């Protein structure tokens, strides 16, 4: 089986689940014997090459294009970059492929064109929708339209959770029969030593992520418990979040790290006592699984995909800052709770491997090829 996958963000230039997913999925697919041509936007710096059999990485575009980073339009508007990349992909991708696999709106237009031009099936993976990204506040109608068109044209849609699947059915009116749920996975990080009480948020600082609720809950926790809060990552909300921590009077207990390297990310997961994923709307939430494999118990938003697969975690409504604080304090105070969740969650997370995700993805491929 030979597939053309159109990617967008990819290590070392990645900001979210889509990049992680493409990296590990393509490697596992290749290991399972699928020939994968992964198309990526050409970045400044050295080109990226595949180091394994069956996987080819083909960079498209000149001059260099820039990935999706809304907080700093790296030399241009993200919409323009996406548009140019999709046009180039639509024109240049050619070959004897069994199917096209694209991801989110970012590569949707190329996916639709190539399906038409090459006459082969289209798979669309939905990692997030405009409703998620906008936290349901003023979604961009142009993006909604593009997403809907891609969902309608795709032969099969892979949703990263039932949470997302239901959104596609309810908000986009997509027939549930063509949606397959394939959950994300985690590459285990490994435990470290925890010395002080640290409560961690790690992720993009965007409205979708609910970091504001994390800080409001930190304020409540600090009334009862001495600990430190770390907000790791970057994003357009960084200035307003710093301002919020000052106005809440907790800036001495909250640390903003800015963007972290991969090693720093692992380190911060390992030394934290609690990880919180407070998202307003989170299609999956790979970070929760990452934290677990670093031996850190997690509190996740009920509006998340990861909440539906994980039993050994605590869940909260993102807006319920009192309950979030109650659960953070409980994890900090009660060793028995922390240890029991930690041990059970580690066992549970072992189940979610990228090979599993790849095998389930191949099942979806077979459905459209063997028709």
């Amino acid at each position: 089986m030979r597939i053309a996958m159109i990617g967008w963000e990819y290590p070392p230039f990645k900001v979210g689940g889509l990049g992680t997913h493409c990296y590990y999925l393509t490697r596992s697919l290749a290991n399972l014997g699928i020939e994968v041509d992964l198309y990526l936007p050409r970045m400044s710096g050295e080109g990226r090459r595949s180091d394994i059999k069956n996987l080819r990485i083909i960079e498209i575009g000149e001059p260099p294009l820039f990935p999706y980073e809304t907080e700093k339009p790296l030399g241009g508007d993200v919409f323009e970059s996406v548009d140019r990349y999709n046009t180039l992909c639509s024109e240049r991708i050619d070959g004897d492929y069994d199917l096209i696999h694209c991801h989110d709106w970012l590569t949707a237009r190329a996916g639709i064109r190539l399906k038409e031009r090459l006459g082969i099936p289209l798979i669309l993976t939905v990692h997030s929708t405009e409703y998620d990204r906008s936290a349901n506040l003023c979604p961009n109608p142009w993006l909604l339209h593009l997403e809907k068109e891609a969902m309608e044209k795709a032969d099969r849609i892979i949703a990263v959770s039932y949470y997302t699947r239901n959104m596609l059915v309810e908000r986009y009116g997509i027939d549930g029969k063509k949606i397959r749920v394939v959950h994300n996975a985690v590459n285990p990080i490994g435990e470290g030593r925890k010395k002080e009480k640290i409560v961690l948020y790690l992720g993009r600082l965007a409205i979708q992520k609910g970091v504001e609720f994390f800080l409001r809950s930190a304020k409540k926790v600090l009334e009862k418990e001495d600990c430190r809060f770390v907000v790791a990552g970057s994003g357009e909300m960084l200035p307003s979040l710093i301002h919020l921590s000052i106005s809440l009077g907790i800036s001495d207990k909250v640390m903003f790290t800015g963007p972290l390297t991969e090693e720093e990310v692992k380190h911060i997961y390992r030394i934290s006592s609690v990880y919180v994923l407070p998202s307003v709307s989170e299609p999956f939430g790979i970070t929760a699984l990452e934290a677990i494999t670093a031996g850190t118990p997690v509190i996740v938003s009920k509006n998340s995909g990861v909440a539906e697969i994980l039993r050994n975690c605590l869940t909260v409504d993102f807006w319920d800052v009192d309950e979030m604080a109650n659960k953070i304090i409980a994890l900090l105070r009660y060793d028995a709770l922390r240890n029991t969740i930690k041990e059970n969650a580690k066992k549970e997370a072992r189940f979610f491997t990228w090979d599993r995700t790849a095998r389930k993805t191949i099942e979806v491929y077979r459905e459209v090829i063997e028709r």
Partner: protein
Amino acid sequence: MNVCFYFEVHQPFRLNRFSVFNIGEEIEPFNAYFNHELNRTIFERAVRKCYLPTTELFLELSDDFGKDFKVSFSITGTFMEYCDLFAPQVLENFKELFRKGNADLIGETYFHSLCSLFEDLTEFREQVRMHINALMDRFGYRPKVFRNTEAIYDNRIAKEVEKLGFKGIITEGTEKVLAWRSPNYIYKAKDADIKVLMRNYRLSDDIAFRFSARDWVGFPLTADKFARWISGCEGEIVNIFMDFETFGEHQWPETGIFDFLRHLPGELLNLDNKLLTVSEVVERFEPVGEIDVPFAISWADSERDVSTWLGNDMQITCFNELKGLEKRIKEKGDEKLLRIWRLLQTSDHLYYLSTKGFADGDVHKYFNPYSTPYEGFINYMNIIQDLKQRI
């Protein structure tokens, strides 16, 4: 064959949501800790679905078969309190069955407590006496046979129960204790002069768990089929023990459980079986051997030990915290706080914190007011911390 039916009748006082921010607040603890509204709703539903229809059915069977129809009940103190508050008719039905000679009563801890697992058994003795007094008050009867919470049993408990004046004690007929021996006989406790009734768990669970299981070879279970199984048993006495809520709550009316129950005594008697109460069993049969149980067993889960309540660190932490309050709470002499402490001992609170795997976990989930055992722990532990601050 002789058959002894015994039903456990119990409802716990379930807890309110209690956040860490509630700890130390100036609030009335009884109303703050316990969710009276939820408890009333659940109890009244159980009254409609199980307690009233089943006791009424038993009264009909009493009319049909007279004193050939015999059952035994263990009714907890908390259950009797629920009846006083919300369903006096249920208790009246039990009294009527008792008065007509169809029902025997069994002793246990008043609060369906795990205090038999405390190192010091003072609290256990006090709660057993409380329960005897409650039965004396309401039924004018002193029970002769004892059943500890969830049939938890070991040599030490048996000895203590003997000292409290009981002639018999009930526990699980598990192979862990019996090995090759049959549960269908009476045994003697090691180092104590008390007879032990062993539950026949296969036949009991055929009704309690498997009755409506379509993938079970015995399905559908009819009264005459079950009566034939009983008649075919080896031994002297078959003990069929289960939760009373089996009828109408765990097995819904649609499964045909009430029809089964209605016809069972007739079918059993037709085949020359005899129904006995627990007291009659203790009077009529002599032990055929001794059982030695150094480590506690119970009737719960596939492990048949106490891991259902003390199987993980969270459960052990809560249990130890609660146990650790005994001395201070009794010295303080505040009756209200003592009663709260005892209500918190009810085994259900720890049962909700069990993290056992899927096979057993499914059964647990059915009765659990919390979405996860972790939520249950936070709530229960916060309440224990609040109580601790009050003494």
